[in-house]
């Protein structure tokens, strides 16, 4: 089993699972809010086409949860808007 954290909570995953699949299995449905409406989003296409399941992994925003394989000890957090508010000016 692989273990990672999501917004501070510990989540387990099977080896080879994507971040999105592991979050889905753990009961999460959304981990992103949209830039304009602040609406919740999670997995939609599941195969890297729609860019709806964006997530922050180890500080890197904008990753597709459906394509990003979980590694043990990953720090995953939900993404608000573009996920780069630290650059906002």
């Amino acid at each position, binding site marked *: 089993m692989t273990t990672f954290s999501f917004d501070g909570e510990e989540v387990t995953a099977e080896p080879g699972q994507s971040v*999105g699949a592991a979050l889905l299995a753990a009961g999460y449905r959304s981990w992103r809010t949209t830039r*304009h409406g602040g609406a919740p989003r999670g*997995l*939609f*296409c599941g195969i890297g086409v729609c860019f709806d399941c964006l997530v922050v992994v180890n500080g890197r925003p904008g990753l597709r949860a*459906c394509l990003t394989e979980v590694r043990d000890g990953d720090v995953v957090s939900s993404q608000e808007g573009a996920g780069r508010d630290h650059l906002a000016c």
Partner: protein
Amino acid sequence: MTTSPADIAVIGAGPAGLAAAAAARGRGARVALLDSAGRPGGQYWRHRDGHNPIPASLRQDILAGHAVWHVEVEADGFVLHTTAGEVRARTVIVATGAYDRQLPFPGWTLPGVFTAGGAQAMLKGHGVPVGDRVVVAGTGPFLLPVAAALRHRVTGVFEAGSPLGFARHPLAVARNPGKLVEGARYLRALHGHRIPFHTRTAVVAAHGDDRVHAVTVARLDRNRRPVSEREIECDAVAVGYGFTPQLELPLQLGCDTRLDADGSLVATADEWQRASVPGVYLAGEVCGVGGAQLSVVEGAIAGAHAAGARPRRSLLRKRAALRAFAAAMHDTYRVGAGRPADDTIVCRCEEVTVREVRESVVDLGATDPRGVKLLARPGMGLCQGRVCGYATACLVAEACGRPVTAADLRGLAARPIAAPVTLGNLAEGVEDA
């Protein structure tokens, strides 16, 4: 990473790509088989760790994790720019497949609403069902394996069309008895799990605050207008209205395209699966959605011909039969544009509504989807119109009072950058030059 050029680069390791690579390699060609995923097989042959559908003879040719973001044509071949370096080849076989086509409805952006292919990918690729009470909806035979795989977790299958339409195509069906057996097997599986299968019924709205908890389904009349509605509780929706071929690379290469019978833009292939651009072959859904069997046959033809051999006549006969069946399928599962309410979101990325799309035509004078895209931004977000392109084209054409054309779809399908690449990665190329 620049090595000596391959004879043939096959892009996409799904059914078409694997068949093409095997056929080409079997005739002595040096093959590079590129796939964006870490594990090949495409969307059709999904396999979890330990189950590998790839023939041993091909494993050394596979370049996994190579997402092609741009193809350049050079005098003596092609340069494929991928997220894992450059690959050069004298001939290219594009077998990039397709993804679920979507028609927007109110609530389709709610978490818990998935594409049918997404639900299948989660289950087959990762062992995770998308919910415990799943509504499977949309149109086409693909809904059946999705529902059959989710088994008792499916609340109901809602098919907007009617499979009875196949009765209009007795010859196409007779030439493909296996397809009937396959369909019957899935329907038996649904029956065994007591999953209701409704035809001429569509999901017209999804409800929930931060996740879906119910959908409204409606019976459709002959003109596809909803006539009687009811609400069904669920915790997930898997929806798809056929497929959209991935045409980024054929369009970058300048290949001719056309409107196929299912309303999709597809690249034009000749009898040997050659595209209109010399040195480019097409196999599988990129040249017309027709399922995995047809993809395998087209891949085998393309691979053999690209390697300088004459494809077997039996392959050509098989292709003709499978294409006839695909045509019957497209006719049976016709997709209308739908008539989503004005405040329905069309473009999930930029959160553009149906109203904004229509206003671009009515108020601002846009006359095609590209113009609407420039004014109201549908298709301008991260997915670059992959998800909303078809629906936007339908809505714009409807607002302009005319049918959708191939040019409409091309205006939303051209993507000079086919996969995400950082500016830093791009700039590294400056030092190489």
